[in-house]
């Protein structure tokens, strides 16, 4: 009764608000909010210099550079190829189109450890793909990029798809009637409509890549200062019983993740306003 009196904007004849919201808040608090706050509270037990040293040690800074750099490169490649894949799936008809469409979701469903060992085997020196490449992929930063590209692949396609499907043919016809070439129609009419969704997909892929662990650790080789990602460093600290150090790095990554979440929420609002909903 308390919840409905305090929060409801409008009276409803439907029952169950107090029970449903009460359970939701309780479960959310116990599973998500309280444990997450533990990470922030733990860092308050550290002095500022200790915290600063923990999050700016050379090995840690190198891991930020790799994690953010490889995540950005993977999200960028996914944005470019995701646009092509999405365009082909929505606009063209070809054999096995439905199969390919379903396959795009594979990185959502395939456990990250499975993806990790499969990619490592493929890109190692004598692997199916690795033996044809002139440079090393497994156990280098390029390997990290490969794994993060795999993980982020569906985000761009799936955020673009509904927008591209809703795009009215009339708009393109109008552009053509007014004398635009197909390329002009694409760059001046279609691409601006897709931009918010494209950026949202990019941001989602980037955010996912920042925290990724399972698919990366097998292929990365995990050499300190070279191919060691930040999540792995958290585990390493934890295994050395340096809980405070692990938590300090985790808080930095959490702040980055929350910043990405805010950016994504803003981008999604922009996408909706572009679509006129």
């Amino acid at each position, binding site marked *: 009764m308390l919840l409905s009196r305090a929060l*409801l904007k409008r009276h409803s004849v439907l029952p169950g608000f107090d029970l449903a919201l009460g359970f939701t808040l309780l479960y959310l608090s116990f*599973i998500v909010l309280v444990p997450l706050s533990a990470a922030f509270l733990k860092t308050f037990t550290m002095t500022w210099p200790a915290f600063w040293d923990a999050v700016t040690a050379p090995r840690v800074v190198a891991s930020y550079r790799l994690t953010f750099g490889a995540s950005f490169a993977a999200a960028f490649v996914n944005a470019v190829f995701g646009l092509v894949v999405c365009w082909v799936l929505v606009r063209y008809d070809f054999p096995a189109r439905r199969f*390919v469409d379903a396959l*795009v979701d594979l990185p959502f469903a395939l456990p990250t*450890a*499975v993806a990790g060992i499969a990619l490592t085997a493929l890109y190692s020196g004598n692997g199916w*793909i690795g033996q044809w490449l002139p440079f090393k992929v497994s156990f280098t930063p390029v390997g990290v990029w490969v794994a993060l590209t*795999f993980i982020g692949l569906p985000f761009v396609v799936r955020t673009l798809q509904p927008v591209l499907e809703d795009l009215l043919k009339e708009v393109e016809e109008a552009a053509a009637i007014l004398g635009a070439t197909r390329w002009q129609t694409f760059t001046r009419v279609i691409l601006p409509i897709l931009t918010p969704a494209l950026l949202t997909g990019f941001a989602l892929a980037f955010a996912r890549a920042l925290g990724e662990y399972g698919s990366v650790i097998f292929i990365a080789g995990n050499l300190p200062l070279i191919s060691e990602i930040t999540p792995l460093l958290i585990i390493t600290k934890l295994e050395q019983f340096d809980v405070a150090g692990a938590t300090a790095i985790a808080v930095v990554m959490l702040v980055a993740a929350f910043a990405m979440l805010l950016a994504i929420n803003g981008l999604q609002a922009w996408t909706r306003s572009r679509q006129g909903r």
Partner: protein
Amino acid sequence: MNGETLVVAGPVAAAAVAPRRVSDATTEPAWVRRLLIGIALAFLAVFLFVPLVAVFVEALKKGVDVYLAAISEPDAVSAIKLTLLAAAISVPLNLVFGIAAAWSIAKFDFRGKNLLLTFIDLPFSVSPVIAGLIFVLVFGLQGWLGEWLRDHDLKIIFALPGIVIATIFITFPFIARELIPLMQAQGTEQEEAARVLGAGGWQIFRRITLPNVKWALLYGVILCNARAMGEFGAVSVVSGHIRGQTNTMPLHIEILYNEYQFAAAFAVASLLAGLALVTLVLKYFVERRVAATGSAAMGARR
């Protein structure tokens, strides 16, 4: 002599003179189409299809006997059992949460709704490793409840409860996220009508809401289950890697791989890859049903 003049001339003339010309203005030349399809398929083949095939090929590389031995040895069996058990506990809990959250958010108008939606999405943006870490901070020996748990001889970290809680955290938003947009789109008229006609809360849910969302609910459960069984990072932090006791399937794969037992690692991995394929197939069918029932529901509302 191009497509747009024919559009102006009217559909009949367009169809009579050159029907294909009409679409020329809104599509690309054939060579561009073929090139784009080629690029897309090549990209997906290299990054998705080949890795998937590789799992099964590597698993069977040393023959069916090695494969069967790898998935039936005691450590593998105990890992499979633990994975199934953890999923069997965490998925139903997240199902109850998903329904409760969707009911309150989609059917009522209240203050703080957007904040609540953002909080529900939080686990999506938290690294699995950090998800494991926060439960170590709460339940671990140096954590908030560590001493109390030790005094009462309760084990959470490095035991089943820790694995379950970490799995719940990682899969927390999945079912709620499937249900909320659909239930919001369906509105409240049907439930309100049932209420006015004298139906109770449980009756309304069972007879009206549940049939309307059953396919989305099923898909949410499938996806939640796939992620629960495949979770690696978070479980890796809280499990302690005790062979035969706290090793889930993904952790067992890691151990085999690091011991250079590649065929065995890929054999266990192929079971999870099979689960992923089943998930994709079910998703395909469920999405078709949602599209069918969704448009029917929209049609009824108009």
